[in-house]
Structure formats: structure tokens, C-alpha cells
């Protein structure tokens, strides 16, 4: 069914606040009326696609529902891209109407068939003749470009059915209490941003947008808007924890705090849990290609793992929990054999929310509908899923495959380590060597040999970092993904420079 229906269903509570975004506040009824008008604007433009360049807020749910009601796909783009980067991606979309926040207007130029500022779109939507097409449920509703940290950005096609299956399979309709509010600071071009804009109205929950993340502002908004749930990426959680430590804010209204987007270091999770003992923590794992969340470590799972004397149970704090009910998972060996619990391989997933389809490439699902995530993973005896990073990031040292996450998980527990990334740098002898890039804890210069022996004490000798280098911070993209390729390039460049004869 169409994602537009999710908003129609939310009209069960027409007077509830749907969106708070800066000065703009919209009830469900107002959002729906604007989406009808927005659909009229899109239909009248003759566009075959809508592109959005901006920081989001109310514009995201508005454009998602307007486009759905015009039966045209929409693509929120990464507003941090260069003018060239933006135009290259817009050129890949057919006859796009480009809606753009003022500050990115120059970068967009005359891309697409027509350009409207967000303010112009909003104003036109208020007065336009409404349109209400019925989109084919198997047609594409949203196209998102992958972040391209490991290869050129791919255009992931998510159908109406993918997205509504996700929302209806993981969220209970109208389950939010009057006054519940979600604080959203994930960017609009990220699948979690799209997921939030669809699932919160369906749950009947007010959306409070923080379009430019700032930890102090985040803490203020939780208090001012009575925020009951929020989702953050690792770098945001790190900054929020720092603010909580200095301000002693307790966030009494907050009931659940979800984290995800990429791996969160366990010491940070433990610190957050101890600072916010009344909050239920949720670790959500998902991919763009799976329409957001496919596995969840629930608040109860966190509590059970934290207090458990049993080693296997305690380890689950570092898992992404169990698959959501509408998703099936398999761990496969390189030859395609399905592996049992405790065995590491590639994660495959299947379910109605899984797209696995890219523009220009087609579907990468196998004949039985399984999607290869390219994530290294294993399941424990109880079905908890552990993610060991991208298979592309696997280090091959002297013919041995080494998952960086295994070493990172150990190293980050060292009291002198604040954060770390382990990567493979080129080496004439081993092919690749293990380099640990470490962000030291405040005001400390860790001892390199001490760090190496810390790892050697807990993992096989072949996992010991060959080199340890220090950095003030790790290079990450806006959603907290470590840019490993940048680190590797930097290390390889240093290596070749240092080897030049003096």
C-alpha cells in the first residue's frame, strides 16, 4: 500500500501536533492538507521525480507525503555535497523537481527541470489545487543514494510496499500516548530519517526536529518539548554524554534512546546507561536497502546483558539484538553454505521491507529473495545477532582474514583509549598490516607497547596491531560512519613518503 495511507491513518487524531520544526508547528490535519497541496504543486510541475536538498525538518515528511500523493518518487540528497556532487546525483534522476533550502540554492544552480526554494514550495502548497493520485504499491516511493564510503553512491529504490511493510511490521498503529514526542536529528537523506518521518505519524507521536545537531541544543529540546524518545548516531551520543557529564542534566521525560547508524563503542554505551538509568536504550541495526531497522537490542536486553554474570549473556550488550518479526536472517559461508550459531560469515536477510534494488543495476536479491548485506556477522545460541563490520573492510594479512571490529572491540576497552579504528595499510611483506588508529582518552599519551600487549592478551597473536598511531579524532561522515578509506589512504601515503631516500 502507499505510504500516503500512513498519514491518512494518522488523521485518527487530526488535532494532535505532528511536527515541530523551528518556529513551524503543524497538526496532523495541517500536515495532511499541506501534503495534498504539495502533491498539486508536484503534479503541476510535470516532474517525474522530486529531489530535496536541505537540512530537513518539516520539509521531509511534507515532501515524502506530497510526492506519494503525486505518485512520484522522492530523493532527499546529502546537502553537504559539493555543487558538482549534487548536480551529478540530480542528473541521475529523471526530470526532477528540485526543492532546495535557501543556503544551498547556489550549489543547485539550474539542475533538474525546475527549482523551487523550500519556502516557495511551502507557500505554493498552501494555495495549490490538491492532487491525490493512487500510487501503485509496487512503484518506487523513495530513492536514497548510499553514502559511498566504500564505492560510488548507488541509488537504492524503496517501494511503497517496502516502506509500509517496515512501518506496519515494526510499529504498532496509534500506540503513542497523547504528549509523546520523538526528537529527530538524523539527516533527511539517511534511511533512519525517512523511517522516522513515516513511523512516528503512524504511531501518533509528535516529531520534534533538530536540523543541525548540537548536543546542548539537543538536551534543551528534550526538556522544552517533553521528548519521550530519540534516535542518535554514535558521534552524537558521544557529544550528548559529554554535555550530560558537565551539565548534570537528567532528561526526566526521556523513556527510550535509540542508537545506530554504525557501531557504538561499548564503554560509551555503558557510560550513557549509567548517566541515564531511567532511560530504555535501543540499539537498532538496519541498512538503506532494508528500509531501516531489521534487528533491535531492546531496553530489556540491555538490562539483562548489563547485570549478567554469564559471559555469553553479558556479551549481548555488543550485539544488535534479535531480528524484527518480519525479517528472516541467514549467515552464509563464502561458498553459500548456511552456517550455524557461533559461526561467522556474511549476513543475508529476507522480508517484505527488503528492497535490494538499485537504479541502473536492478535487483541483487537471489532466487529465494535473500539480500546479501555485505556485513560480516554471527548469531549466538539465543539468536542474537553480532555484526563484525563490512566485508570490504576485512584486513587480509599474510593470507589471514581479520575483521577490524574484533580488535576495535578489545582496544576501546583500554582505559587510555577514547575511540579507535583498525584498518589494513599496504605492506610489501604481508600484503596488509594491521594499523590501530587510536584517539587517546583526554590528556593521556598511551604507551604503544601497552596497547599492543592489551590486545595480545585477549586475542590470537595474529590480531596484534603491527602499528599504533594517534589522532585527535577519527574522520567520520555526518552520520558517524568512520571513513576508513581516508585513513588507509593517509597511512599508505605516509608509508611511501617515509620510505623515500633522504
Amino acid at each position, binding site marked *: *500500500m502507499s505510504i500516503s495511507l500512513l498519514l491518512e491513518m494518522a488523521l*485518527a487524531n487530526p488535532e494532535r501536533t505532528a511536527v515541530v520544526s523551528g518556529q513551524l508547528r503543524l497538526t496532523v490535519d495541517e500536515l495532511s492538507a499541506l501534503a495534498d497541496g504539495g502533491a498539486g504543486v508536484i503534479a503541476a510541475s510535470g516532474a517525474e521525480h522530486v529531489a530535496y536538498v536541505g537540512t530537513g525538518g518539516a520539509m521531509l515528511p511534507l515532501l515524502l507525503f506530497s510526492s506519494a500523493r503525486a505518485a512520484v518518487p522522492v530523493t532527499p540528497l546529502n546537502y553537504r555535497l559539493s555543487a558538482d556532487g549534487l548536480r551529478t546525483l540530480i542528473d541521475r534522476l529523471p526530470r526532477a523537481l528540485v526543492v532546495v533550502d535557501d543556503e544551498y540554492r547556489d550549489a543547485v544552480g539550474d539542475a533538474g527541470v525546475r527549482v523551487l526554494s523550500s519556502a516557495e514550495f511551502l507557500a505554493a502548497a498552501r494555495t495549490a489545487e490538491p492532487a491525490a493520485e493512487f500510487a501503485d504499491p509496487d512503484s518506487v516511493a523513495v530513492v536514497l543514494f548510499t553514502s559511498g564510503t566504500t564505492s560510488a553512491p548507488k541509488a537504492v529504490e524503496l517501494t511503497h510496499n517496502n516502506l509500509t511493510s517496515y512501518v506496519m511490521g515494526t510499529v*504498532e498503529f496509534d500506540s503513542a500516548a497523547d504528549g509523546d514526542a520523538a526528537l529527530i536529528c*538524523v539527516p533527511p537523506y539517511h534511511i533512519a*530519517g525517512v523511517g522516522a518521518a513515516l513511523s512516528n505519524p503512524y504511531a501518533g507521536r509528535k516529531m520534534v526536529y533538530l536540523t543541525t545537531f548540537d548536543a546542548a541544543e539537543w538536551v534543551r529540546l528534550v526538556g522544552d518539548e517533553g521528548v519521550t524518545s530519540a534516535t542518535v548516531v554514535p558521534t552524537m551520543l558521544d557529544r550528548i554524554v559529554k554535555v550530560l557529564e558537565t551539565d548534570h542534566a537528567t532528561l526526566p521525560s526521556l523513556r527510550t534512546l*535509540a542508537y545506530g547508524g554504525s557501531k557504538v563503542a561499548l564503554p560509551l554505551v555503558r557510560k550513557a546507561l549509567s548517566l541515564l538509568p531511567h532511560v530504555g536504550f535501543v540499539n*537498532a541495526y538496519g541498512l538503506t536497502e532494508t528500509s531501516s531497522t531489521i534487528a533491535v537490542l531492546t531496553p530489556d536486553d540491555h538490562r539483562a546483558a548489563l547485570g549478567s554474570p554469564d559471559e555469553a549473556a553479558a556479551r549481548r550488550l555488543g550485539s544488535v539484538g534479535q531480528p524484527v518479526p518480519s525479517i528472516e536472517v541467514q549467515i552464509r559461508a563464502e561458498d553459500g553454505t548456511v552456517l550455524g550459531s557461533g559461526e561467522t560469515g556474511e549476513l543475508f536477510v529476507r522480508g517484505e521491507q527488503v528492497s535490494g534494488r538499485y537504479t541502473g543495476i536492478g535487483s541483487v536479491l537471489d532466487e529465494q529473495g535473500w539480500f546479501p548485506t555485505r556485513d560480516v556477522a554471527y548469531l549466538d545460541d539465543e539468536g542474537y545477532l553480532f555484526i563484525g563490520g563490512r566485508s570490504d573492510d576485512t584486513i587480509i594479512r599474510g593470507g589471514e582474514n581479520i575483521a577490524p571490529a574484533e580488535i576495535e572491540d578489545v582496544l576501546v576497552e583500554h582505559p587510555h583509549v577514547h575511540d579507535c579504528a583498525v584498518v589494513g595499510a599496504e605492506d610489501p611483506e604481508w600484503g596488509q598490516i594491521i594499523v590501530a588508529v587510536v584517539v587517546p582518552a583526554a590528556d593521556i599519551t598511551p604507551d604503544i607497547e601497552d596497547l599492543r600487549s592489551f590486545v595480545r592478551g585477549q586475542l590470537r597473536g595474529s590480531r596484534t596491531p603491527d602499528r599504533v598511531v594517534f589522532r585527535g579524532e577519527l574522520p567520520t561522515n555526518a552520520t558517524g560512519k568512520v571513513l576508513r578509506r581516508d585513513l588507509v589512504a593517509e597511512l599508505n601515503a605516509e608509508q611511501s613518503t617515509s620510505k623515500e631516500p633522504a
Partner: protein
Amino acid sequence: MIKNGTRLQSQVCDTQVIVVRSADSLDDLRAGGAPLVPVGSDVDGGLSIDESLAEGNLMGKRYVDDAGAEVLVTKAGKGTLSVGSTPLAIKEAKPLPASD
């Protein structure tokens, strides 16, 4: 067969549902014993609720039958949801915490 996404209303109580997963069985979907009709269409005022099918239903819950059909209650009412005279079963799902 009724299309997924079709919104239906009861003729004898407040119940409204949306078809999440259609099946042929839903051609005989009833609430309180009376056939459901598309939301906004005329209601037969001569019908009344069958007291043997008046257990009610719950807002936001999904109901299923043996044929794989699934409907979601968007407005609760007094009538029992049934296919013919066989009541639909509530689909029990452990609620997940908000994750995005």
C-alpha cells in the same frame, strides 16, 4: 479480491479497518455480523448488531484469519470482526521500542 489498503467501515458499530493483506476470504468480512462497506459509503440502517458477535475489537491491533488475510483496526467498535461467522484472531505481536 479487495485491494490492500482499502478502508472499510462497519454498518452496525464504530469499527473501521484497513486491509493490510488481502485474501478472497475478506469478500465476506463482517463486524458485529454485518458486512463491512467502504468508508464513506451508505450504511443500511435496517441492520443491527448480532449479539453473538459483539465481543468488540481493539484500536491499532491486527486481526488475521486462516487464509492469511490481515486487517488493522483504525477505529475500535463493539462488533466482533469475522469472516462469515468465524471470528478473526488477534495477531499478538510483542511491541518493539521506537527505533528511528
